[in-house]
């Protein structure tokens, strides 16, 4: 049955491999570091599968409801008698699903990297960072305590920083890594303050207790936090919204998304693992983790989640249509798809049929992880082949790299929502949920679905069709077995994952939820997607002037999209212009001139006084005699005056 020992091994194996490769890799295990990392992940993935099987089919369900099982925990840092950070592992449907996703994708990426990173000087560093990331991500999803989640949340941020900046002699990579870390750190400030607010009133940091205290109507803790208010909103709203800010930063939601496209500077397998499949969905996971509180006690905060998600999904899709760097297009599409997951959570209610959005969101998280990892790994194979990220350097690759071509096509069809690929099913559920609960968001989602199909196939046609490359310019063939195996496996998963009856396992209240595809309802989105695909085909299958004409017609909109709506520049104004340029410079000036000046002034004053006093000590006898004489005379005068 579920045993703490081997469940703990799931995150601990990658940790062990991190320590081993990180400390000894460079000198002794350079060649072995890849296989060691992969092996530890293979074991951990197998254990995750066993755990998932046991949880979903044997131990997890108690009286028909999936329970939260705390496998073990110990007090790590006590703050006050009831409030402490406990390190623990908790199993519930979403964490079990996440360990499956994380270990599976990480395993694929490890295998892929064995070939992709061959010949890299610092390969042991690379694999140790990957292991560190996997450990942190697993710790994050298994966290039993909100502070534990925050701790691992920061650690995944660190591994993301290290891996984005892996090629640290490239200034752009260093800048991107820095940006990613700082933007998410800024967002995490919200997370931290959110934790402070919620834990103060709930008097606990433990997830299970926290959620039950804050979601039970009429509980004293809930009363205390909802009755306290700040600037017109209850502290509960503040706490939950701030928590979400942290999630929005990690999940690259508008307007905190600016780090994600730049993060593509990292090695491509890293983008697949961290910036597509796992770390960036941490925000979704966190809202899902706290979902009962959001849904039952504070629908207002959930509205924020919904609209942030919807706006981000549309916004990113618009930008993705005009970018020319293959990885950046994928990055914006990631942001757009995470937007889907967010607003699916945002429109969802709690329990029964109302909870469709919750199930749909996590279903989409699951399918997206598979097909987006596939897309990135495919993109990696393409980049490996043409040695460039730019779409203009590609074209006609379908004959040169056939396996990559087919698997990429599968992933594109999935993300476009074409049946029977997995993306279709999860997207259908999301659309259904938003249709039932929030019609404006449904419209946005529908439009975005069409855009998604368009820009994904723009990418597909530009890479694999469009123009013919001369055969001899790229003599070497497709990547080796280690690169192709993950592609094929993920493509198979992408084909099959849609048929998993997801609602049976994951639902807002733990009860099974059955959902079927309604043919009539699916018609519009599928037609829209096909429209998008055909339009992309007309534009990009052969070299044509249509794209340029369209750009001229759209004019400003095209330019705005191409310039990413200048959000980066706005942020730069605030940070570099105001905070560093004005506040920072003022602080440095103030310190140097005013404070230090005052101290130095005091010192010079003392110097002046002492110099003046020293002048009296001239060392000349005549001067002293004159002084004595003057003294005697004045004394005489004084006494004369007194006596007279």
């Amino acid at each position, binding site marked *: 049955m579920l045993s703490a020992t081997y469940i703990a091994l799931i995150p601990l194996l990658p940790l062990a491999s991190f320590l081993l490769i990180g400390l000894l890799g460079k000198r002794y295990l350079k060649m072995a570091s890849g296989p060691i990392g992969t092996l530890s992940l293979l074991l951990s993935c197998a254990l995750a599968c066993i755990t998932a099987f046991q949880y979903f089919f044997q131990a997890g369900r108690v009286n028909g409801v999936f329970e939260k099982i705390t496998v073990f925990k110990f007090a790590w840092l006590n703050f006050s008698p009831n409030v402490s950070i406990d390190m623990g592992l908790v199993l519930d449907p979403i964490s079990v699903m996440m360990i499956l996703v994380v270990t599976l994708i990480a395993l694929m990426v490890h295998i892929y990297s064995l070939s992709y990173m061959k010949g890299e000087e610092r390969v042991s560093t690379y694999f140790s960072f990957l292991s560190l990331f996997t450990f942190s991500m697993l710790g994050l999803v298994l966290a039993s305590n909100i502070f534990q989640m925050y701790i691992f949340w*920061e650690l995944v941020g660190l591994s993301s920083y290290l891996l984005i900046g892996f090629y640290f002699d490239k200034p752009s990579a260093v800048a991107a890594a820095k940006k990613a870390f700082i933007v998410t*750190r800024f967002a995490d400030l919200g997370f931290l303050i959110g934790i402070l607010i919620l834990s103060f009133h709930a008097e606990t940091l433990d997830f299970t207790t926290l959620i039950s205290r804050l979601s039970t109507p009429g509980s004293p803790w809930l009363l205390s936090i909802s009755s306290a208010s700040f600037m017109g909103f209850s502290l509960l709203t503040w706490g939950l919204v701030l928590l979400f800010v942290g999630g929005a930063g990690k999940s690259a939601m508008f307007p905190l998304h600016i780090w994600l496209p730049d993060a593509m500077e990292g090695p491509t397998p890293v983008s697949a693992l961290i910036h597509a499949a796992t770390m960036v969905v941490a925000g979704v996971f966190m809202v899902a983790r706290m979902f009962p509180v959001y849904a039952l006690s504070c629908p207002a905060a959930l509205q924020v989640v919904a609209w942030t998600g919807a706006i981000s999904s549309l916004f990113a899709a618009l930008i993705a249509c005009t970018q020319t760097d293959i990885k950046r297009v994928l990055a914006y599409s990631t942001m757009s798809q995470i937007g889907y997951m967010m607003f699916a959570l945002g429109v969802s209610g709690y329990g029964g049929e109302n909870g469709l959005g919750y199930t749909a969101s996590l279903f989409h998280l699951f399918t997206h992880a598979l097909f987006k990892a596939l897309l990135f790994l495919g993109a990696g194979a393409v980049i490996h082949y043409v040695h460039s990220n730019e779409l203009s350097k590609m074209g006609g690759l379908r004959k040169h790299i056939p396996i990559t071509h087919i698997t990429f096509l599968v992933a594109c069809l999935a993300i476009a929502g074409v049946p029977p690929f997995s993306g279709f099913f999860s997207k259908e559920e999301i659309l259904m949920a938003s249709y039932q609960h929030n019609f404006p968001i449904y419209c946005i989602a529908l439009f975005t679905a069409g855009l998604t199909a368009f820009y994904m196939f723009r990418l597909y046609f530009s890479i694999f069709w469009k123009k013919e490359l001369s055969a001899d310019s790229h003599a070497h063939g497709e990547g080796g077995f280690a690169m192709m195996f993950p592609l094929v496996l993920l493509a198979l998963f992408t084909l099959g994952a849609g048929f998993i009856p997801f609602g049976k396992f994951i639902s807002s209240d733990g009860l099974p939820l059955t959902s079927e595809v309604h043919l009539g309802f699916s018609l519009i989105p599928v037609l829209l997607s096909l429209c998008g695909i055909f339009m992309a085909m007309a534009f990009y299958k052969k070299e044509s002037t249509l794209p340029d004409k369209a750009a001229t017609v759209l004019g400003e909109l095209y330019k705005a999209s191409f310039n990413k709506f200048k959000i980066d520049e706005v942020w730069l104004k605030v940070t570099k212009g105001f905070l560093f340029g004005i506040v920072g410079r003022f602080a440095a000036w103030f310190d140097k001139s005013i404070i230090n000046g005052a101290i130095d002034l005091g010192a010079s004053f003392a110097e002046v006084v002492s110099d003046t006093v020293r002048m009296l000590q001239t060392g000349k006898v005549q001067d002293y005699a004159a002084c004595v004489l003057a003294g005697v005379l004045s004394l005489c005068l004084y006494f004369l005056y007194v006596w007279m």
Partner: protein
Amino acid sequence: MNSLFLIVLWPALSALAILLCKGAKQVRTASLVASAIQLGLTLYIAFEYYTLRRAGDHSPFMMQSNLNWFPQFGISLHMGIDGISLAMLLLTSVVVLCGVLVSWNISYLTKEFYFLLILLSMGAYGFFISLDLFTLFFFLELAVIPKFMLIGIWGSGRKEYAAMKLALMLMGGSALILIGLLGVYFNSHTSGGLPTFDLLKLSVVHIPRNAQHILFPFLFLGFGVFTAIFPFHTWAPDGHSSAPTAASMFLAGISMKLGGYGCIRVACLLMPEAAQYYGPAIIVLACIAILYGAFATMMQKDLKYINAYSSVSHCGFVLLGIAMFTQTALIGAVMQMVSHGLMTALFFAVIGMLYERTHTRMTADMSGLLKIMPFLGTVFIIAGLCSLGLPGLSGFVSEMTIFMGSWQRPDAFHRIATILACASIVVTAVYILRAAGKVLMGPISNEHFRSLKDAAWNEKLASVILILSIVLIGVAPFLLSGLIRPGAFEIMKTIANATVLN
């Protein structure tokens, strides 16, 4: 005679032994052995402490010994430790050992250098175990004067200016402390009997409130100068940057902690009512130091200035944690002292090592060093990550403990102060990553740097010791917080009683 005396006796003996040594090599070896033994001694004291605690000894101060010195003035050689002072002793012995290791290449007046360094450490050890205000002050002074010479003789840059500034400002702080201590002394027999300097006797005496109001600022500000309280922090950047590496490590790692420890142990404990009264003012100063220090750091171009200003910011957390007057925040403040001590010592050590090789500390002149010196680069990054509060390293747990403790004060003033302090961790991330990006990453700008050697054995050993301590606290914070808790509990009890009186 109990084992605690050895803690101050041993440095005195080893300082004498160093004077008797011949040649630089002997001096180095003797200092290394002496400070290693000192670390062992401290660990033994810790062991003894735990044994006593486990045996059920719950007295606030353990291993006490009391020798009459000037009975007619109420002065005695009273020593004892609680968890807080034990934490400080451990910090001191680790930092001193590492300081000895990184100074391995000092060739000018080696004997005198090590003699002064050990003398400084003696002052710190004595300070942390004194339970008599007079001896406490004596040891505090002992920890000031050698610094003047260390900076003035072995320093770099504007060393005379820096040495003078540091010595004068710290002396000024000591003068304030002395006034405060005399004031406390003469108010210690209001209920009859002889006046006393004994901390334990004083802690049960109630000093009249108006006397407290006058004396508290003297003591708090005086100790505050040591811990670089705003606006008396300017000795820190100049002093740190001119000091030789080991002195910088001592200065930031230990000397700044003398101040924090004094604020807690003397000022707040003896005058709890005044502490409460001035609490908000201290919080304001602390918040200014935290944010202003962080922003000022961002504009610095010299690595040592960066670390010095960031120390101002980090020590602001200590003061904030103290002035919040909750047990959790106080534990956090002490944890932050230990954490900052180790982290900043590591930072100064690695900056010193880089300086020794590149002969520059300007960030603009360095680039891509990680590729040439992977070990030193990694150490730099770890120190930086600790400074920006990454989980798994000591900075995170101490800052979070302070935040959690501060948040327990539910009024708007304390809340805003806490939020401002939280916000500073973002600024910290900015300047740390900028510095690391500039110095370590990017293309190699200076071809001469290609031939530089990575760390030598002594540098590696020092870094590893400091990193291990940082990681130990970061991964198992319950060890440190458990050690501090009883002492913090006693102090908070006194302060809470004062609230009742108010």
